[in-house]
């Protein structure tokens, strides 16, 4: 009973949040003073034909509410408009970009989570030991370093050893087998994924450590000790399992850091993903791309948050039953 309530609530929240994001997106670009479309002179590439196309595309002759409904209807059909910069549908541009972003970000994030959990747990169970101090301070340092700084440092350190920009070697003619293509891609991915993992791991370590410490202070851990269980068994069967709950919540909330990390890293390593697309859109005042990019990223984050909610649901019997 309560379990299904929870699911309904979280689903509704996800749907409404998407709606809120769409609405923010709409108003940000059309209604705010100094909004984008009415200020077409700021678009460097604007020709008279483009201006006309824009007026039609944005329905500027209609009232704000009509425009809003029009916008919702277009979104329903998956129409995000046409990019100013390359005259391609925004949707096609974003699909390509997202396809490039996901593998790199996924690998970096997973590595950061795995390392974060390992070091966080180690720190907590060895609280106040040298290992804890070293691991915690290192985590704070990596939490503190700006992403772009870490990226540039890795670029300088590995200059010549690893590819520094893009996803593939443009001069790799001749051997174009799938295997060598994949190897090339992997080589290009090392630095961006490593930078992402480094910027994220510190925060994860700190999150997991404090979740674990809080769990180790709970009364049922004393019960477990009283039962004559070994330290290992207590950590494995009680502490880890329970600390997963706050960890899932907090990693869900740190999705924002993943996104900002990914954007900066794509810019630094010229990775042709959604972050680069957003950056290019800012530089070229390509508002349809900017708007579309914002929407895609936000909806992705909302969906991932919903996944975190589902994981929580699976992990906590207090909700399930």
């Amino acid at each position, binding site marked *: 009973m309560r379990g299904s309530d929870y699911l309904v609530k979280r689903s509704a929240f996800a749907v409404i*949040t998407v709606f809120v994001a769409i609405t923010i997106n709409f108003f940000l*670009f059309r209604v705010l003073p100094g909004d984008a479309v009415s200020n077409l002179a700021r678009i460097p590439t604007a020709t008279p034909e483009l201006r006309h196309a824009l007026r039609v595309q944005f329905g500027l002759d209609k009232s704000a509410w009509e425009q809003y409904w029009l916008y919702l209807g277009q979104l329903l059909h998956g129409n995000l408009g046409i990019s100013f910069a390359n005259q391609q549908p925004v949707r096609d541009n974003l699909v390509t970009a997202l396809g490039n972003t996901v593998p790199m970000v996924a690998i970096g994030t997973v590595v950061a989570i795995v390392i974060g959990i390992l070091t966080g747990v180690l720190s907590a169970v*060895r609280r106040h030991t040298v290992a804890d101090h070293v691991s915690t301070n290192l985590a704070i340092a990596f939490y503190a370093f700006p992403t*772009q700084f870490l990226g540039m440092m890795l670029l300088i350190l590995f200059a010549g050893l690893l590819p520094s920009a893009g996803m593939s070697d443009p001069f790799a003619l001749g051997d174009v087998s799938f295997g060598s293509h994949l190897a090339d891609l992997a080589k290009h991915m090392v630095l961006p994924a490593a930078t992402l993992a480094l910027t994220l791991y510190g925060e994860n370590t700190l999150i997991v450590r404090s979740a674990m410490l*809080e769990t180790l202070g709970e009364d049922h851990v004393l019960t477990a000790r009283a039962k004559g269980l070994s330290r290992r068994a207590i950590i494995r069967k009680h502490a880890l399992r329970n600390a997963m709950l706050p960890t899932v919540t907090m990693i869900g909330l740190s999705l924002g850091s993943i996104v900002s990390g990914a954007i900066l890293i794509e810019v630094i390593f010229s990775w042709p993903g959604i972050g680069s697309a957003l950056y290019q859109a800012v530089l070229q005042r390509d508002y349809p791309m900017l708007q579309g990019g914002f929407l895609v990223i936000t909806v992705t984050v909302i969906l991932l948050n919903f996944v975190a909610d589902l994981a929580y649901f699976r992990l906590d019997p207090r909700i399930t039953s």
Partner: protein
Amino acid sequence: MSTSVSQVDVPEVEVQEGLWAAIREVLHERTAMVGLVILAAFVLMAVFAPLLSPYDVHVASCGVFDPPSAKHWLGCDDGGIDMLSLVITGGRISMIVGFAATLVAMTIGGGVGLASGYFGGWVDVVLMRITDYFLVIPDLVLMIVISAVWGPSLSHVVIVIGILLWTSTARVLRAQVKSVRERVYVKRAQSLGASHLRIIVRHVLPQVGPLLIANTVLTIAVAVFDETALAFLGLSDPTATTWGTVMEHAFDRTAVSAGAWWAIVPAGVSVALVIMGCYLFGQSIEDALNPRLKVAHLSPRSWRLRTLVGRGPDAL
């Protein structure tokens, strides 16, 4: 748990003492002090920047990407400008932007948290819904979009960061205010007919003060971080010297391919130090206020055995 008597009837002063005791306890802690010293050093540096900066940041004083030397401790950038001066001058604006954005965020977050926790009911429901939505939407992306629409300027950076960084403060504060509200003396003050404003200022704020301080300091860290990110994406005032724009220029003007690490490291490390200072200090306060971290039922060490040989029970 079972000390119900002392929990219900605590005199007002003692509770406040207890909370501020957490701060006093923090000041005895080494990590918190390290954080505070780092922060204080950077604040002093920002205040006295014009006096400390050895060269003018608008005038070239050495060659392109000159490495660190006796005359230029941290080397020079692509325009032959002294890095140490850039970092000192940039620190001033970065810190101002970080502090100002935090002020905006704390005003919103503090207001929302106080109102939500204090008034409860539909005010709470509405405010927390809004907070939840803001919490999910990725900050930097929205910041990028807003700054792109508004155009790059320092005041826009301050506002954009400020209006997006308040959510966690609102959440944390609301929970604390809610529990303070339940305390006896707040109820007593209410029954004596004190106004809401008076109760909030006299009874609630002193209680949540330490937590608010901790959150403020932690928010400064994020604000400084976000400033550099926005600057790096070209969304800050490109003519202003901040740690963010210094790093951005270095990247734009091929410091990486030139291997001129000294054009990147000083600003990057400064940002990292400020964030570390904030984190160490703010987190220490938060940890001291968290009763759940005080107890450890499982620690790597066992308890110790003490022998009483030669000591009678009275000698103990």
